[in-house]
């Protein structure tokens, strides 16, 4: 289980990275990567200004 990033929507702003409690997200130049520490809390999904993130069950 993890978060899925829609790279076609994402504007690589880093907002999601700043709110992720375990620090599972990383903005690498122009894309977001999710590591295995993601707990599926959904906070990043909520705050993304464009809705580029989705918790994948």
């Amino acid at each position, binding site marked *: 289980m993890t978060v899925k990033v829609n790279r076609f929507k994402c504007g690589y*702003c*880093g907002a999601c990275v700043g709110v992720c409690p375990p620090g599972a997200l990383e903005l690498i130049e122009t894309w977001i990567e999710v590591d295995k520490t993601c707990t599926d809390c959904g906070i990043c999904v909520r705050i993304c200004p464009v809705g580029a993130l989705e918790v994948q069950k």
Partner: protein
Amino acid sequence: MKDRYDVIVVGAGPGGSMTAKTAANAGLDVLLIEKRQQIGDPVRCAEGVNKVYLKEYIQPDPAWISAEVKGSKIYAPDGAMVEMSEKLAGAEVGYVLERKVFDRALVRDAALAGAEVMVKTRATGLLMEDGFVKGIKAQHMGEKYNIRSDIVVGADGVESKVGRWAGIDTTLKPKDISTCAQYIMTDIDIDTDFCEFYVGNKIAPLGYIWVFPKGNNMANVGIGITGHMSGEVRAKELLDDFVQKRYPGGKVIEFIVGGVPVCGTIERTVANGLMLVGDAARQSDPVTGGGIFNSMWAGDIAGKVAANAIKHSDVSAGFLQEYETKWRAGLGRDLDMSLVVKERFTRLTDDELNTLAHSLEGIDLGSVTLIGLLWALFKANKKLLWDLRSIFKGIKEIEMEASVEVNS
């Protein structure tokens, strides 16, 4: 690249560049790294800044000034308007910047002061020894490097990890971040002399919409809403609603998104061998979301404290506390005040917002400061704004009156 520096600054936004420039000017061996390949791009900013403050740190250059403005107009949900402006001709108070050019000018200044700059270089962790930060782990063009330094400055913005790596929890709660979307629009009818703000729970829940003139018939039209209001509706959708109603024939020529910390001061911003600056230290204003000047101002202090620490061969958190004390003395009170204002204003209904705007009808605010505006509002609406009373403590009534009535 060398394998050792006095100071490594992570992030080449305004905060990092000012830190690097000040430290290099003081004679330190400085490395400034930035993970993007182009400084400041994509922009994450509405680009409004107070011009008087800015002059202290960089010589104004038409290359990065998109427009000059005389003041602000704030629109309540029913359309009532509150104006804050400089009436004297030629007394423009603010710039709307071209941040791509501005941020690069700041990096250039750091480089000219002697700092080494590396772009497309990302910090991926810290080197730690005996509880002290001793440098960074970095990646550049796919290669991994360990680069040592006596001090690391985290100026890595809203997505900051440097603080977390050193054990400072800078994670933002949803209510502590403003989530934003912005268009550059053209072919729209705008007031070129004013920055406009639109408030209301329907159009921008716990936030606001801004229209900042960019010159040449362009404007930054954007929205920021508090993170916990985002989800069912999002910044971009709300912006689209506004744009369709307000500028039906307008043309969008650029789109950006972003997040600004609006949490107010955090517990600490120094550790052994480490300082945090700007958005990474959550120094942006909780009400306005403004952080350009704050980050530069704090960066300048951090650069000076770094020089002092290296001179005394003491980079412990105890010594670097000088940075913490100084920035809190200068900025902490403003951020605390803004937080009180934010807490109150975000609980107002649209009707109450209308009431506030109407209460100022017929009052000439002149070249009012924010505290002056709040004082005028407080005096006319004591019951509604009673929670704000604490922010006026210690400020002489005379000063607040003066700031309201200057030009009336």
